[in-house]
């Protein structure tokens, strides 16, 4: 196919931009809708607290929006920049950037909606804790955004690095795999982090005296829940920055693409599962402050076991990159 590189880059850029914004809009809208739903139920329960609840709903929705804003930024860059390139590798890089940000925004958008909804419900139950609930919601939602930041960083690296020194094949597959790894890997951690923050807001509303242990356990749980997304980012960096030998056969390229898919899809389940585990820990620390140590220990052990399939995916991904 004898089109010049600029044509192919435009093809990849437009398709990538469409994918980025299309996928990126899913998560944020679902999260914001969930928040609106919970806010509505909360207002019906306690009409006097309407002002506070409404304000929290708007703030929570604004934070949940941010993941899709990152996707909008990437889509705008893809549509309007001129990528001067001398190699076909940039075609794959541009498309992979769109993929990475598109998938990466899904999880964080949905996840950030959960704590905002729980904060609204909590305010209906316990209007006096309004300020503390808002603070907790902000901390939880903001940490929940971290996986989509990883995807944004990957997308920027893919867009703005110079790949002209690399051989076309198999680097095209490596870059596509990097996009999948970082993008898909952020879905599970985003949703999981949101579930943790949701239960922490609910716990604080239920038991205002337990604010400090609940917040600490929430931060701990969210930090560990981010691990699958970090594994995805790690594989994606390996795929971007490792230099591969040029090859004409399809198998090495498919190995690299498969490695990205492997860790990407493999990080979804453990992310959500660790989030659920940690949310159980947070929920019961709120109800049973005296046994914080036992609950925390069990929660960490359980999360480590839930991580195991992500570790298996990481091992297979690394085998696909380095051994095969």
């Amino acid at each position, binding site marked *: 196919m004898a089109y010049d590189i600029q044509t192919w880059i435009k093809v990849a850029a437009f398709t990538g931009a469409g994918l980025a914004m299309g996928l990126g809009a899913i998560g944020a809208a679902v999260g914001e809708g969930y928040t609106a739903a919970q806010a509505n139920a909360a207002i019906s329960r306690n009409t006097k607290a309407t002002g506070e609840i409404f304000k929290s709903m708007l703030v929570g929705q*604004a934070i949940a*929006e941010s993941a899709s804003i990152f996707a909008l930024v990437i889509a*705008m860059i893809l549509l309007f920049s001129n990528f001067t390139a001398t190699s076909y590798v940039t075609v794959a890089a541009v498309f992979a950037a769109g993929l990475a940000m598109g998938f990466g925004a899904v999880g964080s958008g949905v996840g950030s909606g959960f704590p905002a909804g729980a904060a609204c419900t909590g305010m209906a139950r316990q209007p006096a804790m309004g300020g503390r609930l*808002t603070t907790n919601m902000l901390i939880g939602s903001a940490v929940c*955004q*971290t996986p989509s930041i990883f995807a944004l960083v990957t997308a920027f690296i893919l867009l703005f690095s110079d790949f002209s020194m690399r051989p076309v094949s198999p680097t095209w597959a490596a870059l596509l795999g990097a996009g999948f790894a970082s993008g898909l890997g952020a879905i599970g951690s985003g949703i999981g982090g949101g579930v943790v923050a949701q239960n922490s807001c609910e716990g604080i509303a239920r038991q205002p005296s337990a604010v400090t242990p609940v917040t600490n356990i929430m931060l701990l749980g969210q930090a560990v829940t981010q691990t699958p997304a970090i594994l995805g980012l790690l594989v994606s960096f390996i795929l971007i920055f490792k230099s591969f030998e040029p090859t004409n056969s399809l198998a090495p390229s498919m190995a690299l693409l498969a490695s990205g898919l492997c860790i990407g899809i493999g990080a979804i389940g453990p992310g959500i599962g660790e989030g659920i585990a940690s949310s159980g820990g947070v929920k019961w620390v709120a109800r049973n402050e005296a046994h914080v140590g036992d609950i925390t220990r069990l929660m960490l052990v359980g999360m480590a076991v839930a991580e195991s399939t992500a570790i298996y995916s990481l091992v297979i991904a690394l085998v696909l990159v380095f051994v095969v």
Partner: protein
Amino acid sequence: MDELGKVYQLIVPCFGHNMTFNLDAIAMTWIVFGVLIVFGFFATRNKSLLPGPVQVLGELFVSQLYGLTEDALDKEKAEKYAPLVCALFMFLLMSNWIGMIPHMHEPTKDLNTPLSLGLMGFVIAHYAGIKSKGFKAYVKEYFEPIFFMMPLNVIGELAKIVSISFRLFGNIMGGSIIILVVSYLTFSVLLPPFLNAFFVIFVGAIQAFVFTMLTVVYISVQVK
């Protein structure tokens, strides 16, 4: 539609590298400063017990933002940081709303403004953390709960700067591009005012509030 890509820049060569100044953002920031200084002057000119309208507005901002800061920090620390919070919120609100006036661009449309404000908040928060906890305890916190979580904690801190800056930048820039594109496509008189109302007024106010609240929360997390 050609205005989409144009950025007026002043490039000053300095020791072999080029310093570029984005003139749009700089001029608009000075205009926002001017507006805020004039507002502050008129609000505090004749402080009386029965306030005039400008003074009422000023008191409204200050009392609400002091209340917000006290919610997140304790009382004496809140007194120290509340002026910063007020200034940040009023600057962001005015700079997001100045886009309503024709031919004015929001200074937050350029990535430099939100990024520098985010870095400023980060530096203030971490300096406050080091000063209140001491350097050893501050560094030790990065190694909680298990020592090999250190790189993850560092990445998490850096991700906070990126997320608040890009959230503000993306919302404002995205909103202004959408208004430009939709107005270009529809040639209508009816649609752009509603778009402006939503994207500039509503989203601008909420994003200014969210940026300010997140900065306060980050300071409170470090200080407590």
